[in-house]
């Protein structure tokens, strides 16, 4: 009993490991033999001390231990091995291997209890092992999950960075696309306008010279002035042609959602707007019918209006810079798209001219943006107008027909 206790006390784990290490059938049966032998020795010692009370419980312990450490087979083996000493020490007639008839029932009980103890023990052990292995598997799974989570977190970070880079690239693209379209148009306009302008300057120079007293020639001077008029008209025809070109050259007329277009433009310009500390609010009407037209051109118009608003608000330092894009449904199947800023607004004298070509309030503007925007919108059968926003700023409003001309 003392030996068993000490064994279970501090040697249990080591023994388990030992058995697990040398996990052969033979070693397990040897272990069962050992337990039964130990029980026998201790029983003999106890017998020696307390002769009157024969004991069986040490054999139960040996059976349970054997079944625990060795499994069902060694457990049964321990039961069988315990029978002779039990018969010898416990069942009448004592100190023989024979058994009296009245002790048969008791012996059967002993046997049943021994088998039940062994089976329970081995089952318990199996259950415990399953539990442990499940626990280990769980731990493994948990660790895998942790790793997966770590990888996932990294991936999320990576994706966020990529998305950021993508957005920056898109903004840049939008800017370049805007500049390219404007640049190409500007270059061709520049050439077309430069020719008559150069002619006008030269004719004016000639005219001035013919009016000098030293070589006064009224006929020549008048000829030169007439050429100036002709070339001036030619320049204005060029501008008219460009407007007509923009008006007529609409390659595509497909239906598209105005709200989606607005969201697209804001997404493209988000970085630019954030950089200039512009607060954007969207007030988009629900259930708008699609508009038919050239999405790319109208995209350019909205981009242009938003950029203009942002540039106008660059001068605002004493209040938050607010940009609002609002879509509303109007009667008779039209819808309105308003870009509202709270910049300094447009002065009364420039108000009438802001849609004319080559009129600009910007330091480096060409003065073509709004003129081209209006041509594009009018080509879609819409209007583009500007009204003051109260108390500050300007409302640029585009009206377009819903699904149709």
């Amino acid at each position, binding site marked *: 009993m003392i030996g068993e206790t000490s064994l279970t006390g501090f040697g249990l784990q080591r023994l388990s490991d030992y058995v697990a290490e040398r996990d052969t059938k033979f070693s397990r049966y040897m272990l069962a033999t050992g337990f039964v032998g130990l029980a026998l020795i201790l029983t003999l010692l106890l017998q020696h001390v307390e002769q009157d009370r024969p004991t069986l419980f040490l054999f139960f312990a040996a059976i349970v231990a054997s079944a625990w450490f060795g499994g069902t087979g060694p457990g049964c083996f321990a039961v069988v091995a315990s029978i002779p000493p039990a018969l010898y020490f416990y069942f009448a007639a004592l100190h023989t291997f024979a058994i009296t008839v009245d002790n048969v029932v008791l012996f059967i009980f002993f046997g049943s209890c021994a088998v039940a103890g062994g089976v329970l023990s081995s089952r318990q052990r199996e259950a415990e092992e399953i539990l442990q292995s499940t626990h280990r598997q769980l731990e493994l799974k948990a660790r895998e999950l942790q790793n997966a989570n770590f990888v996932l977190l990294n991936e999320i970070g990576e994706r966020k960075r990529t998305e950021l880079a993508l957005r920056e690239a898109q903004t840049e693209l939008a800017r370049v696309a805007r500049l390219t379209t404007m640049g190409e148009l500007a270059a061709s306009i*520049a050439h077309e306008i430069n*020719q008559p302008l*150069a002619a006008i300057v*030269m*004719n004016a120079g000639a005219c001035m*010279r013919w009016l000098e007293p030293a070589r006064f020639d009224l006929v020549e001077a008048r000829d030169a002035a007439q050429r100036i008029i002709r070339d001036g008209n030619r320049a204005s025809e060029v501008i008219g042609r460009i407007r007509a070109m923009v008006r007529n050259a609409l390659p595509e007329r497909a239906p598209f959602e105005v709200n989606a277009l607005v969201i697209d433009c804001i997404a493209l310009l988000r970085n630019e707007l954030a950089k200039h500390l512009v607060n954007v609010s969207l007030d988009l009407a629900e259930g708008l019918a699609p508009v038919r037209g050239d999405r790319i051109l109208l995209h350019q118009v909205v981009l242009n209006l938003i950029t203009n608003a942002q540039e106008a608000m660059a001068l605002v330092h004493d209040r938050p810079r607010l940009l609002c894009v609002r879509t509303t449904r109007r009667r008779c199947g039209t819808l309105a798209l308003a870009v509202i800023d709270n910049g300094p607004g447009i002065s009364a004298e420039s108000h009438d001219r802001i849609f004319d070509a080559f009129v600009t309030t910007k330091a480096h503007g060409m003065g073509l943006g709004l003129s081209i925007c209006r041509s594009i919108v009018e080509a879609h059968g819409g209007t583009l107008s500007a009204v003051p926003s109260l108390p500050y700023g300007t409302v640029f409003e585009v009206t377009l027909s819903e699904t149709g001309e």
Partner: protein
Amino acid sequence: MSQDDPIVYVIDDDAAIREALSGLLRSVGLRMEGFALPRDFLAFRRPNAPCCMVLDVRLPGSSGLEFQRELSATNANIPIIFITGHGDIPMSVRAMKAGAVEFLTKPFRDQELIDAIQHAIGRDRARRTAERELTELRARWDTLTAREKQVMAILVTGQLNKQIGAAIGTTESTVKAHRTQIMRKMQASSLAELVRMADKIDMQTA
């Protein structure tokens, strides 16, 4: 207008520009010949007068820069002033490297163009004068006999009559007679002038 009056050739496909230039140049007393295309200019029989060319960089068919190359390949030697609607720096550098007088971006101030044209004509006139002088010198040199040419070649290197005589195997007095003939035929008043003439003629190649 006399034979020696300068001519400004203008090649620009834009009639309004040609007309304006014509009016402007007339107002400063310059004669102009305008052409829409380079081949019209090439077909034109150019009088032997100081000239320059005002050339649009953007020409139908070929660029003004290409035409500049073609012209210099034919030894036309006409100073060129480029005008362009959309000049960029690399383009102007190329034009100037190829010998253009000026590169003006439209619209330019009329005085700028006139100054450039006067400068170009001045350059052409100087070149023409130098060329005419050279032709005349060559003509004088051609009147020398073979012996005299031989003496002159040594004379301009600074050798004395005696040395020349020894070099070509004749007496000092014969060399002296040759020398007098050379100075007379070449219309040189001093040896120094003769040396300068010899430099211009470049007798090695002549």
